[in-house]
């Protein structure tokens, strides 16, 4: 249980309020320094030569012509990597620069440093690389079968997770099976990979970069540079969105290599095309599901096989596999579960983290199955789900007890009962029709459908990982006012963590003025900005730092006023004695003293899952969201317009209600993208659409209004009872929209995103 806290409710801009983000005005004025905005006197520009082939052996590299180009300072290959030429989040299997083999189209082969980005681009074109092109391995199921080339020592299976619960031979009255496919989605953050590396005279380096986890970058960069950790200092530059795509390294090592080699600051900025090659994507998946159900509508068993294509390098595939397996049954009570989930190496682009990873792919399959079973039984899809929904006290297929609220039935019920949008008028505004101002219909051939879905996501890092964050908090008097300065290494990527940090300190200590110190590696590890974990873990660390600071302040006050420490408390920024009431303002207690505490904070521990049975208390917390989607479909052209997208989500405690809604709206939009438009299209291992012209993300015309219910059922194990918010809405929005398209058209639609030709059959 969480300790009782001395939080003062109703503190201005404290927790539970819509406190404004401290970086908002700078961002709105165009004065916020993103990683691509950095500039240094005497800096040069870096560029990357990438493989045009998904699979080839390198037989020769000739740098002569590139080196001759005026304005070029350096051309580097793997021979110039002083440390370990392999890096990776879970496995060090990815070369900083290719040695003798390239395993995906876009793999970095060489680097150029030059006086102008155009000079660097031209020099890249002058590097001659000879390739012995091989037949790529492009299918995950083939990879699991063992056929095709072996791409890494140890074979092409990155990880296999089985889940075994109950009777593997269970039978049922009714059997419903389906095969589902999820396309490769891109994070499509707007701020491209970029940063500035500045060498120091002692051979150390400062890197200013947009990332999700400074310390894991620092570890990998230092290893590649062959430097001790202390000589590689990272500072978070402004981050233009992340969504998982900045968990892996992109230009971090490359810019440092060039900077140390040339002895000048080096800036690297990917353009949009390079960005599509420069970060990992969401794993495409093939999923085979079979459910057994009684004629009364109770789920008896699930048998599933899930194939996740990890592409050329492992990245976070292991964790993605574990999520898809452990959450593969969805938020339902199923007595017998038999799941096998594989993540593979292929020659497709590397896949890793994207919002909701593993849970998104499984969610599309199990929710499609729920609709199919409900239709088979002649039941309403919400009623069937509710009959089988898990709740607090349920046991997951991993054997883990769900020991916090799990209001799956209520979430579904809430979205079902929301008001319906008006039907299409007889003479609609074309902007409200599928196709919009393309003027492709005035309503003829347009049909409406409704779909529902619910999803489950683990929050924080799982499987026994030592998951913690560090917060340093300093309190002092500046200009007759108490001021708190909070310092963490946890990455603000747009979600609003720095606002939450300020809110926690205001509520805990009653200090209104809170400065957020620049985020860097001079303070301890903050952990990753992923797995919906930062408000939970870094929020928890800031709360714990407040408690430590409060204890020090009270000790200081007891000494200063010669009173028993146990009689003193701090209430709304004032020192209060049990016996005599308010004694002093914080300003007087502190006087010229500075109180500073640094705290590491961990959530409750988890366990690895058994590699044979998949059993174990693997997860910290579960998050849930449900969606209802209403769509209009032009059946003649296969165009879809989502008319309304409603959501209910349990967030435990809405630390900043406005930011919570922003997460739900933004996460739902990314799910809409995966439902109807977003897919990196791969042919023979090559990306066919690496641009915003050809890879479409939702515009303001594509996103419908959302009616959202935010539930606050506290999780007794979490700080303030809060739950991670960012990922759950990305899971259920996709299957809800596809279900609505099915309802409108009567088509089976087993693949997402749904393309026009899937609807028209042409």
């Amino acid at each position, binding site marked *: 249980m969480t300790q009782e806290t001395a939080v003062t409710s109703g503190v201005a801009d404290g927790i539970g309020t819509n406190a404004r*983000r401290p970086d908002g005005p700078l961002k*709105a004025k165009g004065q916020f320094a993103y990683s691509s905005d950095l500039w240094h006197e005497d800096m040069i520009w870096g560029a990357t030569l990438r493989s045009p082939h998904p699979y080839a052996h390198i037989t020769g590299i000739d740098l002569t012509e590139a080196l001759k180009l005026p304005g070029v300072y350096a051309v580097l290959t793997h021979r110039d990597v002083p440390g370990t030429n392999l890096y990776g989040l879970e496995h060090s299997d990815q070369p900083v620069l290719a040695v003798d083999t390239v395993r995906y189209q876009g793999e970095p082969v060489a680097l150029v440093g030059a006086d102008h980005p155009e000079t660097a681009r031209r020099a890249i074109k002058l590097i001659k690389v000879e390739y012995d092109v091989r037949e790529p391995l492009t299918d995950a199921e083939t990879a699991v079968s063992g056929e095709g080339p072996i791409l890494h020592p140890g074979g092409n299976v990155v990880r296999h997770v089985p889940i075994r619960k109950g009777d593997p031979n269970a039978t049922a009255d009714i059997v419903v099976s389906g095969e589902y496919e999820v396309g490769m989605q891109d994070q499509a953050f707007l701020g491209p990979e970029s940063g500035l590396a500045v060498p120091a005279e002692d051979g150390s380096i400062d890197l200013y970069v947009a990332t999700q986890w400074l310390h894991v970058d620092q570890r990998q960069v230092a290893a590649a540079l062959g430097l001790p950790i202390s000589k590689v200092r990272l500072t978070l530059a402004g981050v233009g*969105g992340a969504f998982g795509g900045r968990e892996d390294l992109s230009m971090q090592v490359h810019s440092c290599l060039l900077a140390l080699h040339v002895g000048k600051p080096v800036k690297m900025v990917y353009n949009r095309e390079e960005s599509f090659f420069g970060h990992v994507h969401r794993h495409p998946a093939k999923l085979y599901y079979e459910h057994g159900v009684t004629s009364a509508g109770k789920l008896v068993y699930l048998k599933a096989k899930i194939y996740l294509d990890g592409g050329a390098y492992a990245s976070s595939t292991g964790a993605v596999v574990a999520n898809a397996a452990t959450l593969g049954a969805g938020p339902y009570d199923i007595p017998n579960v038999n799941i096998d989930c594989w993540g593979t190496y292929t020659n497709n682009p590397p896949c890793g983290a994207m919002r909701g990873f593993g849970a998104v792919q499984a969610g599309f399959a199990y929710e499609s199955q729920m609709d199919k079973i409900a239709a088979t039984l002649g039941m309403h899809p919400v009623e069937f789900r509710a009959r089988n929904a898990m709740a607090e006290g349920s046991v997951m297929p991993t054997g883990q007890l769900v020991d916090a609220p799990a209001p799956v039935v209520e979430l579904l019920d809430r979205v079902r009962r929301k008001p319906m949008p008006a039907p299409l008028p007889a003479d609609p505004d074309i902007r409200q029709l599928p196709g919009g101002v393309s003027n492709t219909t005035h309503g003829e051939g347009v049909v409406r459908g409704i779909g529902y879905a619910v999803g489950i996501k683990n929050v924080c890092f799982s499987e026994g990982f030592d998951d913690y964050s560090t917060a340093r908090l300093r309190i002092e008097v500046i200009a007759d006012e108490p001021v708190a300065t909070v310092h963490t290494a946890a990455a603000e990527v747009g979600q609003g963590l720095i606002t939450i940090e300020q809110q926690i300190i205001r509520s805990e200590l009653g200090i209104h003025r809170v400065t957020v110190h620049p985020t860097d590696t001079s303070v301890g590890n903050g952990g990753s900005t992923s797995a919906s974990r930062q408000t939970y873990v870094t929020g928890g660390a800031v709360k714990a730092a407040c408690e430590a600071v409060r204890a020090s302040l009270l000790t200081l006050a007891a000494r200063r006023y010669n009173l028993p420490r146990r009689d003193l408390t701090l209430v709304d920024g004032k020192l209060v004695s049990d016996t005599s009431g308010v004694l002093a303002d914080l300003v007087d207690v502190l006087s010229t003293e500075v109180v500073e505490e640094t705290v590491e904070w961990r959530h409750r521990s988890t366990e690895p899952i058994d590699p044979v049975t998949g059993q174990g208390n693997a997860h910290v917390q579960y998050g849930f969201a449900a969606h209802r989607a209403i769509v209009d479909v032009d059946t003649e052209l296969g165009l879809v317009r989502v008319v309304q997208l409603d959501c209910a989500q349990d967030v435990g405690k809405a630390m900043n209600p406005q930011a919570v809604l*922003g997460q739900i709206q933004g996460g739902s939009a990314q799910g809409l993208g995966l439902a109807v438009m977003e897919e990196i299209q791969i042919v023979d291992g090559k990306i066919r659409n690496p641009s915003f012209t050809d890879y479409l993300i939702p515009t303001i015309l594509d*996103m419908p209004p959302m009616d959202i219910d935010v539930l606050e059922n506290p999780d007794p194990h979490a700080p303030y009872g809060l739950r991670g918010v960012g990922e759950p809405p990305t899971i259920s929005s996709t299957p809800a929209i596809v279900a609505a398209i099915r309802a409108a058209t009567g088509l089976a639609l087993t693949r997402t995103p749904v393309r026009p030709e899937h609807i028209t059959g042409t």
Partner: protein
Amino acid sequence: MRVRVTVNGEDRTADDVWEGESLLYLLRERLGLPGSKNACEQGECGSCTVYLDDSPVCSCLVAAGQAQHRDVRTVEGLAQGEALDPVQEAFVEAGAVQCGFCSPGLIVAAHDLLHRVPNPSDPEIREALAGNLCRCTGYEKILDAVRLAGRRINA
């Protein structure tokens, strides 16, 4: 080549400009105005939107030389000193800024809309901002911000 341009009311000159450089590159890398963002360089995302002689344009699609002797107004030129423009204020207040990378372009586009159409309907707002991509917000709070700014500008 040399480019002379008026930016946010100031006469500016840049030397040694390569003919292939865009107005966006000129602003960001030569004139010290990185507020306009580069997110696609194809005119698809709107992050680089600036006024060119009072018309909003994607500055990534305008050659630097095309701005010669013309008037450019960027997101940095909207605020009056420390005071935010009402559109900027509404974006911050409504929660329309998350990562903020799209904000400069969206704010210029919304500023243009609200100075052309005093009380735009939701379909008008959506149509006017359809060329500006945002990946964080799902656009709901951007609509809130534009409605709020519209009410204040016309109050």
